[in-house]
């Protein structure tokens, strides 16, 4: 029988408890890091005073924006080589969440930029520029998938585009860095200063971990939705064929 209709029973069994567990764990970790960021940690004049508290939201979203595109590319690659349907579902599910986190990174960066630079948007910030391009890559990926008429074509086209984008990301990053180094670069956050004390670093890393787990929970939920969707489509097709 056609193997791609083999129901991913094991995935559904696993994700049934894994998705809510990740959701709760992620929310708890994010809440803890927010509490630390707003109530506990002292302000740091090196990072521009109180506004540095935005770091605990902005930086995890930036890491996730970058990481999710890599996840999308890896899932696409796995699908392209082994044609494992779950990999395609993962790629499809990562895209909207990754785009959301990318938008969140851009918005928080712009708000942080206003008091720091005096303007909402500085084109000189290499990191922000890379994230902006990531946002366009996500949009293009979703638009291309939506434009294809069957699920199989959407998977193939999406995989090709994600891999082309992924091999270009280092080049894009490099070129944007070169360009920003010519115009005096000014990042909202200075990651290259003195080593960050643990009182900042711990909530930052915990927050990033929390967002990562939360991201995984949403991806699993969307993948479950996709499995249900496809099972429904199979029944629909059977009905149409049966008359």
């Amino acid at each position: 029988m056609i193997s791609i209709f083999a129901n991913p029973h094991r995935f559904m069994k696993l994700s049934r408890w894994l998705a809510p567990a990740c959701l709760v764990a992620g929310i708890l970790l994010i809440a803890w890091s927010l509490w630390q960021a707003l109530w506990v940690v002292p302000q740091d004049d090196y990072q521009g005073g109180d506004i540095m508290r935005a770091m605990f939201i902005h930086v995890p979203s930036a890491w996730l924006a970058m990481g999710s595109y890599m996840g999308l590319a890896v899932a696409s690659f796995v699908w392209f080589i082994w044609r494992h349907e779950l990999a395609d579902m993962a790629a499809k599910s990562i895209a909207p969440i990754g785009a959301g986190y990318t938008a969140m990174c851009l918005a928080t960066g712009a708000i942080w930029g206003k008091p720091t630079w005096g303007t909402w948007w500085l084109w000189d910030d290499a990191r922000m520029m890379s994230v902006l391009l990531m946002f366009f890559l996500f949009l293009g990926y979703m638009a291309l998938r939506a434009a294809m008429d069957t699920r199989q074509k959407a998977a193939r086209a999406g995989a090709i585009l994600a891999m082309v984008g992924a091999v270009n990301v280092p080049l894009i990053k490099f070129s944007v860095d070169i360009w920003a180094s010519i115009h005096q670069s000014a990042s909202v956050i200075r990651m290259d200063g003195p080593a960050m004390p643990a009182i900042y670093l711990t909530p930052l890393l915990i927050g990033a971990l929390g967002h990562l787990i939360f991201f995984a929970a949403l991806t699993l939920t969307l993948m479950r939705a996709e499995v249900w969707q496809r099972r429904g489509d199979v029944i629909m097709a059977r009905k149409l064929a049966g008359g």
Partner: protein
Amino acid sequence: MRSPAPIRAAFGQALAEAWAGGAGALLPIGFFAGAAMLVPFTVGSEANQLAAIGTGVLWVALALASLVSMERLFQADLEDGTLELWAQEACPLFLIATAKIFAHWTVSGLPLVLLTPLIGITLQLPADQLLPAMLAYGLGGLAFFSWGGVAGALAASVPRGGLLIALLALPLFVPTAIFGALAAEPGAVGPNILFLAASTLFALAVAPFAASAALRLAVD
């Protein structure tokens, strides 16, 4: 593959089609010149202001002009059945895709590069920079057309895919635009033109394979 005849034939067919169907080079040239003409109207006609942004305007116009006709490059082949025939050739499809992209660049890209000094002069750019800058525009144009070809192949089966092609291709244009603009700046000889050449070579190495994978999907 025993002989380059299929590649030559694909190149010739694409050239003939561009001249017959799409008014050849005239359309992109008209677009390019028209887009550049809007600039003095929108930013003002002061000579030093225009000179400051002139090279950048030419890059933007070149990038957009490379997208204008990309929609039809593979879609026309898909619609009339030619793509099915190419996909069954013994000659690898990526070579056919490369031939078609090169033909398209010859018709719609090269004339723009040759035109840049003329438009540059009207944008008050110093005349002695314009000829060296043509090398940068030529290299950059090749990269634009390569990535545009990938996007065009991906969107070949999409009706009215022009905007989709732009959305897919523009992020990939960024390295070329950055290195190209730096290489075209006065006095900036040195690594930037090499970076530009490297990013163009990268595009030429990756794009044909991606385009042929996308074309196999389009005929399926």
